[in-house]
Every structure is written in C-alpha cells, then in structure tokens.
C-alpha cells in the first residue's frame, strides 16, 4: 500500500501522468485498457493515471523478462502495481501464454496491456499482436478502453536508464467491444486505429 503511494507520487513528480477521460468516464466495470508502448514508464504512468479506487482493482500486464527478476524492479512490480507476468519468449512457456491474464480476468480484475508486445521508438504504435483479440473474444463482458500515452517515448527511450521529466498526458478513449462476425485482423486494425485517433 505504502509502496503504491510512493510510486504514484514519484510518477506524478517525474511525468505528471494526469488522465484525460475523452471517450469514457472512470468506471468500476471490468475493463481491459490497451495502450501504445514506447517506454518502461508506460506501465506505471497508465496505472498512476487511474483514480485510486480503480487502481486497486487494475493490474498491468508486465513482461517477465524485464520486471520479473526480483531486485528493485521486481519489488515495484510485485508490491507496487501487482503485475500480471507474461512470458514473451514462447519457447520458455508451456501452454497458453495468456493464462495468467485469464486468471486475473476470471478473478474480476481489470487489466492494462500493451498489444504491440514490445516498445516502439515512434510516437505512433506498431501493429497489434493477437492477444487482445483472444481476450476480447473470451471475455465479452469486459470493456476494451483504448489509451494513448504521449511524450513517454521522449522521456525514456529504449536504451536509457533515467527518465527525463516531461509532462505526460494519459488519454482514455471510447470503450469498444468485439463485434459479431468481426475477424481478428479487422478487430486489431480497429483497436489500433482507436489508439492512434487519441494521439
């Protein structure tokens, strides 16, 4: 609890991460927030932008190879934002890599995911991977909320250790759902466009 408060304070000090609810309002409904991914700060920034009562019910999906090796990062991920770890390397993963995400959704929690799968160096996101589609299909009750994080690709670009403090605004778009007989590519394109539209 204290770790979470300290983390949010630090994020506010460094990058602000104030929310703009453009297409939807904060709501306790189960949600999957999906956003562009440009830096290691993204997870913390989006999570901090949520109101405290929603933050307590929302878990960011974090790459095990970066956040899951203990130390200070592991402490932040476990005790700060309660990460749901995902294995990015298929060969080290038995069964469904999305299983930890499904477990969290089954427990009624909301998720934060970065469907690009890796950080891009550009302000606009790369094409999305299929994970978001599978979750949208299997959890039709969850609202899918597109989110755009600006300026973080400049704050902490790939390969940098310390973040440059730049004010980041977290924009939340209109909630969407998988439509009847919408195929994977169409859906992923539409989700991608929803994030780009907030840029």
């Amino acid at each position, binding site marked *: 609890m204290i770790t979470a408060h300290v983390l949010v304070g630090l994020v506010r000090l460094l990058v602000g991460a104030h929310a703009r609810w453009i297409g939807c309002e904060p709501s306790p409904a189960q949600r999957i927030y999906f956003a562009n991914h440009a830096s290691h700060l993204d997870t913390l920034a989006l999570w901090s932008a949520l109101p405290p009562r929603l933050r307590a019910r929302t878990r960011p999906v974090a790459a095990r190879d970066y956040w899951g090796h203990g130390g200070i990062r592991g402490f932040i991920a476990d005790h700060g934002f309660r990460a749901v770890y995902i294995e990015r390397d298929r060969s080290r993963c038995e069964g469904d890599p999305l299983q930890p995400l499904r477990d969290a959704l089954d427990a009624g929690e909301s998720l934060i995911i970065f469907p690009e799968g890796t950080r891009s160096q550009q302000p606009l996101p790369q094409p999305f991977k299929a994970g978001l589609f599978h979750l949208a299909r299997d959890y039709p009750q969850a609202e899918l909320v597109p989110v755009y994080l600006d*300026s973080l690709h*400049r704050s902490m*670009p790939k390969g*940098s250790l*310390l973040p*440059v*403090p*730049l004010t980041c605004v977290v924009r939340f778009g209109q909630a969407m759902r998988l439509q009847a007989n919408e195929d994977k590519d169409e859906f992923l394109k539409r989700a991608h466009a929803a994030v780009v539209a907030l840029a």
Partner: protein
Amino acid sequence: MTAQQKFWWVMGGVLALLLLASTIGWWLGRRAAPDRREVIDNLNARIRAWWWMTALLCACFVLGRVATLVFFALASFFALREFATLTPTRRGDHLPLVLCFYLAIPLQYWLIGIDWYGLFAICIPVYGFLLLPAITALGGDTENFLERTTKIQWGLMLTVYCVSYAPAVLLLHIPGYQGQSLLLMLYLLLVVQISDVLQYVFGKLFGQHKLAPQVSPSKTVEGLLGGGLSAIAIGACLWWITPFTFWGSAGMSLVIVLAGFLGGLALSAVKRSIGAKDWGSMIEGHGGILDRLDSVTFAAPIFFHIVRYAYM
C-alpha cells in the same frame, strides 16, 4: 523592527489585498452575466492560486533558508519540465536533458546554500553551456544540432539559472542589512507579481492600445503604464523592508517592473514560436508555472546584480 516583524507586517498587507480580491471576485461571480462567466471563473481561479502561492512564501520564511532553496529548486524543476515538454527533442538530447534535471538543478541551488557566489554565477553559463553541446555532439546526431542545443540552453538558462537568482539574494551580505536577505527576496517577488497583477487589471479596465498584438494580445499601453507606475509606487513605499532609501527603492522597483515586463514579452514570443498558449496547466487559472515565473526570470538576475554592484 526586527526582520520577523517587518515580514509579518508586509504579509498582513498582502493578506488584506487577497481578502479584498476574494470578496470582489465573489461579488462579481454572483452578479456575472452568463457570457462573462468564463472571465470571472478564471479570475477567481487566479485569486485562489494566489492564496496558495502566498502560503508557500510564508512557509519559506518560517522554515528558513534550506526550505526556501528546496522550494525554488522544485519550481525550477517543474518549469524546466514544462519547457522541455513543449520543446521537440530527439534521442540524442536525452543525456544532456538528464544532466540538466538531475545535475544542474541540485548543483545550482547547492551553490547558493554553501554561499559560493563565484561558482554560482558562472557554473551554468560557462561550464554548462560548453559541456552540454559537447555531450550532444558526442552522441553523433547532427540533425538540427544548432536548434536543439539552443533550445536546451535557453530552457536551462531561464528555468534554472534565472529563477535561482530569486533565492540567490541570500548571497547578498549587505552591510547594515545582515540576516534580512529573505526580506529582499520578498520585496523582489512582491514587486514583480504586483506589477503583473496590476498590468492585467489596468489592461482589463482601461486597455485600448495593444502593445505587441502578435506576441501577447493581453498586453496594452494602458496596462503597462497604469500597472507599472502603481507597482513602482507600492515598491517605493516598501523601502523600509529593504536596504534602500525611498527613492532608491523607487528606482529598484522601476528596474524590476521593466525587466519583468520584458521577460513576460520575450517568453510569450517563445511560447508563440512553439505554438502553445500556456506553458502548462499546473496552476489553475494561470496556466503553467512558467506563466507565473516568466517576469521573475528576467527581473531576478538584473535586480540581483544591480543591488550587488550598488550596495556591496
């Protein structure tokens, strides 16, 4: 009177002004026509922000020198954050920016804290301004090199070097005025901010002739003359908290008002050239922290060096 008593007398005056402003704001809010609503709401947001800023200034005075330096270091930090956010940067600017935030800011205020005037005055303009472009060059990205380094240097100069001159009056050990330099900082900030407020008020009430319509549409000749002269009069009447005589204080206020005006104008031009209306949204009604500090960035260093030359 001791420095303490002088401070609280001045603060009593500020408090009375704020009470008056809040009352007027409340009264205007009650009888405002719907189409004037926005102006009045903005006015009241500004007044509320003034209460907070006055409270912070009192906290500085009560807690003393270290708290004052920490407070201004944070102001520099947030101002530089606003400046850097609005300035396009490239990957190669990352290290120089990191050094500005995590090295230059603490170093500059630490030098004031340990009373090392010589290095305080040249650390950023000599070492910083030579080292930063060199580091950018080592990064190897030459695209728009001159523009990028210029922007970083200007940001550092305005938000760290110039702002730090406000608490740097602590470095002035004026004969016969020992231990009262926080009052001199109060004097500087009061005259700058009162001048800003009165120029805004006179401009809104009597403004006819725009001074620099392309740069800052809200600045008018009437505002500058009315607000500036009133601020000089108020500054002169505050001579008893300074080491100056009455006329000396009037002269100092004139310098502060003119420098503050030019600072506001120059920073508005910077804002226009990067396509922003406000520097940020940190202070409700005012915009960003740089919107409040723009006049200070020019007034503080000039005030400091004239006082240092004339009174030490």
